[in-house]
């Protein structure tokens, strides 16, 4: 556990030295801040837009940070050959992969907290006290970001960086469309096609589960039951991708 934690902290420190993550974070803060420009609208419309823009920015830039931090987490160690020194020490490969995952999660968490605080500050500045629904939305965005980070990290154990980026973005888009896929499955009459599509529906990460912001900004409440199940979904799926990462990293010849 201690070894895992040391690797996690080192991963976090190393990522903090990269300028790319700061640039993405600054962009996120600019976009969230820019939502204040809608002051020509009525108060109700403006608040909706601030929430819409901020939730989207927290998620989108958070996803960028999760992807970029995860991509380099393992590949850099291999490129710089520092992994050889590490693995000669009494460190299990599973400690290494899990340490990297927790390091990436720490980066995602810090970025998430900074953007969230900025957003809440903006809401308070507009004299709107964020309600529990806002926090539910943010909580689900955080678990989505962790899942995105986990998937990218897992892909990094057996693919090149370029392929990983393409794959992660592709999954990000497809993962938001799976709900529409479900609608199509229900309309399909062919049992074989429906069965295959249903299987695909389970295999592909359903990021749209985490997307409740469209409802929250217009005042619809989402139950804790839904939030709980979605968090459970996120945790289970993250466990799967970590197992995949462990499997491929164990098999990898280093």
């Amino acid at each position, binding site marked *: 556990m201690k070894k895992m934690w040391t690797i996690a902290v080192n991963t976090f420190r190393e990522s903090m030295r990269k300028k790319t993550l700061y640039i993405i974070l600054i962009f996120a803060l600019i976009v969230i801040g820019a939502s204040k420009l809608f002051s020509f609208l009525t108060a109700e419309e403006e608040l909706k*837009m601030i929430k819409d823009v901020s939730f989207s920015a927290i998620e989108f830039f958070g996803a960028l940070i999760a992807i970029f931090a995860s991509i380099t987490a393992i590949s850099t160690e291999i490129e710089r050959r520092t992994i050889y020194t590490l693995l000669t020490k009494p460190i299990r490969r599973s400690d290494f992969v899990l340490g990297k995952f927790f390091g990436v999660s720490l980066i995602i968490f810090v970025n998430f907290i900074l953007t969230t605080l900025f957003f809440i500050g903006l809401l308070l500045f507009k004299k709107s006290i964020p309600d529990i629904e806002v926090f539910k939305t943010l909580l689900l965005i955080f678990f989505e970001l962790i899942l995105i980070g986990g998937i990218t990290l897992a892909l990094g154990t057996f693919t090149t960086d370029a392929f990983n980026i393409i794959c992660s973005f592709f999954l990000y888009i497809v993962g938001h469309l799976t709900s529409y896929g479900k609608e199509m499955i229900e309309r399909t009459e062919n049992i074989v096609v429906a069965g295959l599509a249903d299987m695909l529906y389970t295999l592909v990460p359903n*990021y749209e589960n985490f997307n409740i912001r469209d409802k929250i900004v217009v005042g*619809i409440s989402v139950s804790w039951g839904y939030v709980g199940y979605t968090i459970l979904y996120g945790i*289970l799926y993250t466990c799967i991708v970590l*197992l995949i990462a462990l*499997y491929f990293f164990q098999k990898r010849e280093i």
Partner: protein
Amino acid sequence: MRRKGYRYLISIVVLFVGVHLVQVQIDYRKKIENLESNLLLMPGQIAGSLVLGGFKGLAADLLWLNMEEYWHKGQHYKILPLLEAIAWLQPSYILVWTVGGWHMAYNIYAEVKTPEEKQYWYQQGIEFLKKGLAYPFNANKYDIYFELGWTYYHKGKDYPNAVKYLEKAVKYPHPEYVDDVLAHAYEKNGQIDKAIKQWEFVRDNYVSFFDIATRMIHDLKTKGKATP
């Protein structure tokens, strides 16, 4: 190593079964909580690509800003497809239905010349508002009921329908003026007793309406008519 590999594989399969079961629960909850998304393949490139990323709200906001621009330029007809698009992207955004209904029944109504055209746009406004009510999350708020009641009352002089929708509006949390309009609608609909009762309710519950409610009750009881 091979044995370990099987162990990983079995664990992954077991976890996927868990994921599937949780997903079934999530889908069920989406259905009962009206959290499902519409199947979307519209409108235009910007909105389309945002939809791909799961940013439907943001797409609706961009279209709303576009609508604002047309509004200030006085291009009222150009607003119509945008209203439809926003309503499609975010049907739970109640403002789009109320603004849309009002826009058709009042602004475009005022712009057209013939009585037939005016009647057409009045009906379009009413239909648009009713379309908004078809979504369960909108049907549990006073907003669209009030807008329908008001449009029937003020623009259509259709008092039975005005009463019908205003009575529904007051069942949900609402501002004070909704009760006030309902009292007027009762009177115009010939339900004087109900109008008096409604004004008494307004008088007893809303301080800001005390004077007007007292006067209305007095006029209704003495002259049988209070609303000009």
